[in-house]
């Protein structure tokens, strides 16, 4: 059988790639794409743990469902924000959005 470690390594890698996307991409939407990847990595982790440790206790899946909902909500709001910012500033490049500069 597939040891748990594979899943865990996979999710860690996915998480790191998502993290890279968040930190390194210029476009704000691309950043959000990276966030999505990270959320998915977390979900993989959760479901893997559910399956491998105690499948009868359905808590893992419930957690994953909730994460789904949260991810959806977050994407909606995030993209709305990006659009709004685009309207005002005419840019979606994260580096150009530095109004909080000193």
């Amino acid at each position, binding site marked *: 059988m597939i*040891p748990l*470690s594979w899943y865990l390594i996979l999710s*860690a890698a996915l998480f790191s790639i998502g993290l890279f996307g968040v930190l390194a991409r210029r476009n704000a939407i691309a950043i959000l*794409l990276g966030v999505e990847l990270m959320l*998915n990595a977390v979900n*993989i982790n959760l*479901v893997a743990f559910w399956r491998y440790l105690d499948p009868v206790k359905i808590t893992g899946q419930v957690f994953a*469902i909730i994460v789904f909902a949260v991810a959806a909500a977050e994407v909606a709001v995030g993209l709305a924000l990006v659009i709004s*910012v685009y309207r005002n500033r005419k840019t979606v490049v*994260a580096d150009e959005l530095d109004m909080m500069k000193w």
Partner: protein
Amino acid sequence: MTILFLITAVVILASAVMVVTSRNLVHAALWLVSALFGVAVLYALLNAGFLAVVQVVIYIGAIAILFIFAVMLTRREMRDTGPGLNKNWWVSALTSILTFGGLAFLLSSWSGFSQTPAAIPSGFDAVSALGDALISPDAFVLPFEVASVLLVAALVGAVYIAFNPRAGDSPRAGDSPRAGDSPRAGDSRK
């Protein structure tokens, strides 16, 4: 099984890399769809069929589409959008590698790192158990309901934030937010 897993894993990781490195955002979004598919297959492998379907429907069917919409709405011109990565991408790469390394190290020092999956008792219906858990007052009905409230809030918020008074036939004068404070929450003062 193992083969399946390996193929799926490669797909996921490759798609993910493409997501974060594509210059063209639409391409990036489409690569995201691919990655999400791979994750769905993974769920199926893990005997979480319901989750796999939910993944496809929601993540790919709603969220990825939303991403494409957003990309469309924020396109300046059809030309090249410049470099995809910002100036300090190598620092970020380093950080991600370190993160991965750290996570892997931490996980590997856990005793149950390489365990085998537990057995599923026969006759165990995960879906119905999930359904029970989500609406049973002893279980997770409250988080479930709160999640629905969260979604409503996100919906209203997103609509409100992204609302554009110039476009559309919505009346201006009568358009007062329910909260009663000034409109144009998304306005930023120059």
